């Protein structure tokens, strides 16, 4: 355990070495948030209800999704791709250290930092725009919301790892990752609530892992899902999670056999 705490400490030290980098990343996230936020606000200047959502519901959705997205999407698992390609994975394989534990420790720090800053940003935005925010209705919903977020985080961790593991076979792991990120930003409900899509498309999406990254936990937060919806969502997302864990394990073991520890 002590080793992974030290990994967290060192990762923090590493981040402080590149303060500007981190700061600019945050600026990017804030700009993105303001764009989405003001866009939706503009829609509501002429109408009271759009796609069955009131203004405060949508704005709450956008603001809370910002925090959840930071929690789900901040990860260092993409590093694995280049570690494989440049042969640096060697450093971890040679030591009595679980590489997934190592990545998880780094992710804990990365997520904490990002969530910490995104909460501050959302509070500032709140003070600035003074929107009507809907608070979570009861403790039960909060608990379910947090469970769903935790599943979302785990799902993304596994998906991102799988994308990185492609590097054992191809030198081009960046392209699939980029494509995935764009698709996932759209399909996970980061830009708008997914249920405003046509029913047929929405139903298909529901059996894919994407909605469970953002949309599903947020809907629980807003209290807009029936118990049946929630149970169904939890089952589907957990099935995906188990499947992805299985895939990661298999692909990792297979990939390591091909690993050539190359590099100059």
């Amino acid at each position, binding site marked *: 355990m002590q*080793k992974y705490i030290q990994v967290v400490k060192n990762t923090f030290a*590493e981040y402080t070495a*590149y303060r500007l980098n981190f700061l600019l990343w945050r600026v990017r996230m804030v700009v993105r948030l303001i764009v989405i936020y003001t866009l939706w606000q503009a829609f509501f200047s002429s109408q009271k209800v759009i796609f069955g959502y009131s203004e405060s519901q949508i704005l709450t959705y956008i603001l809370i999704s910002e925090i959840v997205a930071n929690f789900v999407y901040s990860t260092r698992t993409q590093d694995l791709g280049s570690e494989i390609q440049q042969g*640096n994975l*060697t450093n971890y394989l040679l*030591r*009595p250290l679980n590489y997934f534990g190592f990545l998880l420790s780094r992710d804990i720090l990365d997520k904490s930092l990002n969530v910490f800053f995104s909460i501050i940003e959302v509070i500032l935005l709140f003070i600035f725009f003074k929107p009507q925010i809907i608070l979570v209705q009861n403790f039960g919903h909060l608990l379910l919301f947090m469970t769903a977020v935790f599943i979302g985080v785990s799902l993304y961790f596994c998906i991102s790892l799988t994308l990185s593991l492609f590097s054992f076979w191809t030198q081009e792991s960046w392209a699939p990752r980029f494509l995935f990120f764009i698709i996932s930003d759209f399909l996970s409900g980061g830009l708008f609530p997914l249920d405003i899509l046509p029913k047929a498309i929405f139903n298909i999406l529901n059996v894919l892992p994407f909605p469970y990254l953002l949309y599903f936990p947020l809907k629980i937060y807003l209290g807009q899902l029936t118990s049946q919806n929630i149970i169904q969502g939890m089952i589907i997302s957990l099935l995906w999670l188990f499947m992805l864990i299985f895939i990661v394990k298999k692909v990792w073991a297979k990939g390591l056999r091909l690993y*050539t*520890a190359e590099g*100059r």
Partner: protein
Amino acid sequence: MHSIVIKNLKKYYQVYQKKPGLLGSISSLISRKYKTVKAVDDISFSINEGELVGFIGPNGAGKTTTLKCLSGLLYPNHGQISVLNFYPYDRKNEFLKNIALVMGQKNQLWWDLPPIDSFHLNKEVYEIDDEQFKKTLDELTNLLSLGNLISVPVRKLSLGERMKCELIGALLHRPKILFLDEPTIGLDVVMQKTIRDFIAAYNHRFKATIILTSHYMEDVKELCKRVIIIDKGKLLFDGNLSDIVKKYAPEKLLSITFDKFVNIRDLANIGDIKKYEYPHAIIAVKREDTSKIAALLLEKFSIDDLNIEEPDIEDIIRRVFSKK
């Protein structure tokens, strides 16, 4: 007791070949041709506890591949490997805690942090207790006279300083087995010497088994009694360094200082004249004829000094590699 045993080790790679140019790139999208490269092809040897063995061969001979198989990074296609009675590829914690691989061209230290931060991580990773950590760190920093440099971010260190820190990082847990892959590459002669002395000291102090690869024969000459030579994945020689000379050099060198001027033509039928600049000459003669020819020379010419020398090891190795 053997700490390392390799039997019939084979490691083949599939390398994909691309035709040159844009057309080649396009056709490689559709179909790719793969070629099998035999990086290590049926190699066997064993190494005793506490031995320091030089592992030499030209670029691409399979040295690094062998070391990677021994340290459990690569999955061998064929053969048996045992290191401290472990099968390396299993990468058991007990095995990993007792080995270290240092590559002269790779970093294990965190680039943006001072080495001391990486050392602390290693302390936890290898579960070294405080007292031993402090003791080993002091000892190693003293041996390499590093001082405060361990608190400077790695990216700001010079190549030599970085190499010293890499070595410390790799040795904090006092591995019983140490694989050194060109640890002196790119270093100046003074630094090379420092690293060399350090390796010898570590070998003595901790009774560690060490395999060293290097392109600098100086490293091998000074550190290793035994050498293993491989080329194109095959084992060429395994034995004492001094035996290479006997095996591959059929001649010895006579180094002569003449008293009086001698015409080069008079020396021609004695042996192969390597160099002649009056008053000094170096002549290569057959090993078995050495004493006979030396006596003949002393009789025939007026000689101030005559030495019988072994040919330079570097020359011999070069000859071994260019032979086939």
